[in-house]
């Protein structure tokens, strides 16, 4: 029994390494370009040719951000039901599944299988914060979680037993593909304006009744640090696209820098 307890995680870890290495090699072999939609590294898209000379996306050569979707609904799944009646119930609403992004290489599945199986790491008894022995790398400030002004902690959102799922207040499982159900529990106002299309982002057809791809919370915000520190913009910093070329006759734009100082 003891031996099995030790063996299982080791084996899983081997599986994990194998899985990750194969994907890494796979990527290099294809030599395809990977771009990000909104959050760098967490909203990745592969660029590929869909017709001769036409790619599914166009990417910025400088920052790698997606500039153009040939098909805005590429790789999406139906958004699923929402607890409240809203506009989208009359329209086709799709989302891009978050699981492949968060759970690239199926790591989370392995987590559940290997360690967080209730045996190797026992089920936590409550949601209180406690010192973490591992995973400080995943969420660096886990002990002073930026989200929720330190009133919440990992297991308020993450499922204690099923690591591939989130939970709501009642302990029901929520898919990573539908974080809005979880976020909406606290951020009701934002949730409502998101549902109305005022907050957040949708792409596809603007017209009433047209198909829309809805962007879910975690496609733009980092749930572990929504405010993003002192800048408090709600968004992680990105590389900006290059500035426009200076007009003819101008050597630099120094004249517009340093306003206020020389007054």
């Amino acid at each position: 029994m003891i031996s099995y307890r030790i063996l299982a995680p080791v084996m899983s870890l081997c599986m994990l390494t194998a899985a990750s290495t194969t994907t890494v090699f796979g990527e290099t072999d294809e030599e395809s370009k990977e771009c990000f939609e909104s959050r760098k590294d967490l909203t990745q898209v592969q660029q590929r040719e869909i017709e001769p000379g036409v790619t599914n996306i166009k990417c910025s050569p400088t920052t790698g951000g997606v500039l153009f979707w040939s098909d805005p609904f590429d790789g999406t799944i139906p958004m699923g039901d929402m607890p409240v009646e809203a506009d989208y119930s009359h329209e086709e609403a799709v989302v891009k599944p978050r699981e492949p992004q968060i759970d690239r290489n199926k790591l989370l599945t392995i987590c559940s299988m290997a360690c967080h199986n209730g045996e190797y790491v026992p089920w936590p008894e409550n949601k209180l914060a406690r010192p973490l022995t591992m995973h400080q790398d995943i969420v660096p400030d886990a002990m002073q979680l930026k989200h929720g002004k330190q009133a919440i902690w990992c297991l308020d959102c993450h499922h204690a037993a099923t690591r591939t799922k989130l939970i709501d207040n009642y302990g029901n499982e929520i898919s990573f593909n539908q974080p809005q159900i979880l976020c909406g529990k606290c951020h009701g106002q934002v949730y409502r304006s998101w549902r109305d299309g005022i907050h957040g982002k949708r792409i596809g057809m603007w017209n009433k009744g047209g198909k829309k791809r809805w962007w879910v919370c975690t496609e733009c915000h980092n749930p572990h640090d929504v405010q993003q520190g002192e800048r408090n913009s709600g968004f992680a910093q990105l590389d900006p696209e290059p500035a426009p070329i200076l007009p003819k006759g101008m050597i630099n734009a120094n004249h517009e820098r340093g306003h206020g100082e020389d007054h």
Partner: protein
Amino acid sequence: MSKQNNKQNNKNSPAEDVTRRDFLRKAGTYSAASLTGAAMLLAPKPARATKNVTWAEHFQKNYRLMTDEEKKEAIDRLVKRYSEEFGKKVSVDDAPAMDGVLFGYALNIQKCIGCRRCVKACVAENNQSRGDKQQIEWIRVMRLEKGKFSEGDRDDGGYPQDFGIQVGGNAYKPAGVVLEGQHYYEADKVPEKDAFYLPMQCMQCEKPPCVKVCPVRTTYRDPDGIVVIDYNWCIGCRMCIGACPYWARRFNWGEPDLPAADMNPDTHYLGNRPRMKGVVEKCTFCIQRTRKGRWTGCVEVCPVGARKLGNLLDPESDVRKILATKKVFRLRADLNTYPKFFYFMD
């Protein structure tokens, strides 16, 4: 021009000017050089959209006055020409305005992080000229500094200009929007802590001053509220550039530089079809998309979802909801052009 010529001459001269002896002696070097030169010549060059303009195209009527047949002829001509020049199947749409639609645009100024992705996406979508010689961008993002004009600074620092006498208090407090910011900011990462950003583009005014000043009515307002330009009718007088209070119009100073590979083949006659030199162009709310029901390029790529487009006649649309519930302002509202581009705050 002569400079450019000289440059080109210099580039070509090693292959042309060599004497026979030199040629024999340095054959190896030069053959390599000329091979690269030939490669450069053969390499796909930016297509010239006005290479094969026919007389028929040159003498066609103003788009608005064309009959349906004439429109079809004009579009067929363009499809043929563009497809040849860009080496791909180009479609030129002539979709008229949808019934019961009036486009309005809203931008959340608190959300904008100044990443300029909308600017580049617009270029990718709308076939603007790019490159070092002539870069046309329809969207301009301005970086405004926070806190430079705080109340305290004004009181203590006195008059910001060198001349004049400060008479105390807030005598200098400017009224309305002072668009004094950086157009050419180069940040490592955005958003910066001490800045916010103000993107600007064509506001599709209900009473567009640019339309009024056009001497040949090549630019006009379509029923869905989009101000469009018939590029084939524009005489390039640039009155509209002078009249636009939002600096939204751009001019093709030279032949547009549009690489065939990057060309977006999905075009509209009044929108993103390749332009020729000497005509004015501007944002059309991606008419080739919006008239088919799709969101504009800038709305789709904004990584923070700050941009919203909707039908002002539909009370359920995003824009109407924003107008109803948010704090909204317009730039230069005092000029009474009724811009349909709204900035809002949460």
